């Protein structure tokens, strides 16, 4: 894999040489571990040998938690999804990083956390006021659509004739259904003047078990509800939530027939292979869409805010921030300082190179990533890259967090299961969300209601500091 060109925008120095220590790095297998390959020459210069342990995407939490519980000391640098920062930090599995970050000289040790966008700094990195992790991937959802179709004169005219309004990227989730239905065509029909050689679909979703709940939350969060009230009473089965899930269910009519098997890869490919008109996806997909090696729609994509709901005369948008990635130092590590430097080197020193290339799935997460559009060389022009970064900034402004407290895996799995049952027609949206509320209560009771309430209050404080709620 070709390493991106070193940009030297971020100034950094090597630490005093470690005595040839080995640092074990664990993370989800695939393109997000590529930075360790890109910068493999840097580590020996710091007296560090890197050993990578790849884990399947779905197995990161279980693998890391199992090793932590067993106290095996198998990992020095752990890469994980920040929904688990509460679990890992509160159980003492992670090393607090504040003292390491203060070490001198700054050019070696300071990861410039003040430059990290507040939602990522406050939610991804901190627990109980201390910094335990550094962001490497700032995930959020973004609307990605085929601008060639939305600007096509024939399609615009047809849409106006049918619905009596202009064809525009969807502003609301009602628009999403309408535009999705409009663009759904059979093989042999015309699309933008071309006869279709295969079926074409208006939209697609992540409807597979695992993260389908995030595409529900995209639709629900605009209502202003939080997952729980102050006493951990679930708010997930409100009328607004039922309406949101109904919209998700209805959207499958405009999606490929196997959409219930779509995860990240399938959803990305449906767009990049030219099978759908619009998707909501993570912010790394436009970079891949601009890369001719991966995309058949180069130059045909544009981006926007995740659709919202019209509330009180204006449209409120919220974009789920699922997954994301952080790196942290295991408290059981025998080489904590070396492990910290490796984590900081990836999270800060080389981060602009890592987030701007299409060879990783890592996304922008700090100010410096936004101020250098010239680094995003996969885009046709600097202006196109700047436009992409502007849309990402907007999406992050709409950001809505995951649950983040210990037990997140259980709460989110219960939500995902019932959202998925509604998508599969096994339950109505109301039945599904009532079942989620019931299961969430049972989970809270099992984990200890008072402790969960305290943790939830702590999470609410972080949401407030990050500006995600008032």
């Amino acid at each position, binding site marked *: 894999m070709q390493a991106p060109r070193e940009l030297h925008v971020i100034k950094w120095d090597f630490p005093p040489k470690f005595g040839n220590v080995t640092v074990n790095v664990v993370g989800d297998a695939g393109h997000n571990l590529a930075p360790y390959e890109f910068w493999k020459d840097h580590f020996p210069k710091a007296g560090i040998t890197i050993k990578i342990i790849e884990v399947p995407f779905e197995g990161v939490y279980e693998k890391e938690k199992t090793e932590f519980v067993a106290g095996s000391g198998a990992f020095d640098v752990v890469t994980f999804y920040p929904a688990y920062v509460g679990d890992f930090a509160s159980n003492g599995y992670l090393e607090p990083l504040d003292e390491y970050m203060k070490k001198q000289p700054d050019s070696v040790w300071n990861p410039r956390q003040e430059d990290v966008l507040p939602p990522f700094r406050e939610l991804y990195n901190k627990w109980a006021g201390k910094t335990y992790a550094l962001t490497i991937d700032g995930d959020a959802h973004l609307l990605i659509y085929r601008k060639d179709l939305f600007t096509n004169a024939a399609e615009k005219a047809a849409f106006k004739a049918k619905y009596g309004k202009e064809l525009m990227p969807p502003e609301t989730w009602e628009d999403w259904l309408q535009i999705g239905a409009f663009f759904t065509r059979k093989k042999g029909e015309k699309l933008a003047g071309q006869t279709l050689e295969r*079926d074409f679909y208006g939209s697609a979703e992540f409807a597979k078990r695992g993260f389908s709940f995030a595409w529900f939350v995209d639709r629900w969060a605009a209502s202003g509800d939080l997952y729980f009230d102050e006493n951990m009473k679930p708010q997930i089965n409100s009328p607004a939530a039922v309406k949101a899930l109904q919209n998700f269910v209805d959207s499958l009519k405009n999606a490929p027939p196997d959409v219930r098997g779509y995860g990240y890869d399938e959803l990305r490919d449906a767009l990049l292979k030219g099978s759908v008109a619009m998707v909501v996806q993570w912010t790394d997909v436009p970079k891949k869409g601009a890369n001719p090696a991966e995309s058949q729609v180069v130059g045909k994509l544009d981006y926007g805010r995740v659709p919202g709901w019209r509330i009180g005369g204006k449209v409120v948008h919220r974009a789920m921030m699922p997954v994301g990635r952080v790196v942290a130092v295991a408290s059981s590590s025998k080489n904590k300082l070396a492990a910290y430097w490796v984590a900081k080197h990836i999270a800060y020193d080389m981060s602009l190179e890592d987030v701007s290339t299409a060879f990783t799935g890592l996304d922008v997460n700090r100010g410096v990533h936004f101020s250098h559009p010239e680094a995003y060389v996969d885009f046709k022009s600097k202006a196109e890259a700047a436009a992409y970064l502007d849309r990402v900034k907007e999406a992050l402004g709409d950001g809505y967090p995951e649950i983040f407290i210990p037990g997140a895996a259980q709460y989110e799995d219960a939500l995902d299961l019932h959202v998925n*049952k509604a998508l599969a027609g096994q339950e109505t949206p109301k039945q599904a969300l009532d079942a989620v509320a019931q299961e969430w209560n*049972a989970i809270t009771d099992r984990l200890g209601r008072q402790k969960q309430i305290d943790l939830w209050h702590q999470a609410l404080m972080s949401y407030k500091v990050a500006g995600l709620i008032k």
Partner: protein
Amino acid sequence: METKVGRDVLAPQPARLVARGFRLTPVLMVLPAVVVLLAITVFPLVFTLRLTVMSWELTTGFPPQFVRLQNFARAFFQDPRFWNAMMNTGILAVVGVGLQTLIGMGLALELHQLGRLRTFVLSLLLIPVMIAPVIAGFQFRMIYNDQFGPLNYLLDRFTGGRFHGYAWLADPRVALGAVMFTDVWQWTPFMTLVVLAGLQAIPAELLEAAEVDGATGPQTLRRVMLPLLLPVIVIGVLVRFMDTFKLFDIVYQLTAGGPGNVTETIAYYTYLEGFKFFSLGYTSALAFIQLAVITVVAQVFLRYQKRVRAGMAT
């Protein structure tokens, strides 16, 4: 100097030493095996049994708490997901293993007729059994793919485009069937092997006697071969039944239990409780329920097999 020869060398030792020698030697010889057994079998079993009456949520950091039989009560009376997983596993065990047995018997009867080619064909047939289930799951995920999978391509070609782009793993009506088909594909050769071994053990004179008595092919099969094959078929079915209770890899690869939870098996659900939610007490209770079910079913099978054998002996 006194030299002992012959019987004198084997002269009786003092009684106390003899008694101790007799006690210690066999004990010392068996001890390593006992220690290993205790460490790898008995200790985990007892430890897990103890966990079944504890609440131990590793996400919270709270110490384990004694909760009596609450974990079992939760499984039986409060957890519809448990019953759904048991039902899916039951369908796979009854229908899936039933299909494996029927197809396996058919193939075994055909192979039994083959001459020199039998070993070669049998070797080919056994390839799926040799593949790791996780790989089989991955293969079939490709095969079932709605857009690029060979299954839909062939169906499209053979039906002139009328059967096109079917979502085998995403349609809740057929997803469990797709999982079952993969399992049947992989394990039917095992049943073939078992039945073929049984067929080869049938004394030729019995078949000749049936032929002399004028029995037709189907009559010989029903009245002579099947009764003689029954004990081995019962063992084969029992092994497959126990394996089906552990069906995890294929589900993990193909559907992750979805869409909804229509393909969630009890093994997959137990994995989620144990390694995603880290609810160790509840996971142990689920594991023990499965152990109890398998033990009861195995007893039924083995008693049946004993009865069949006893009937054959008389």
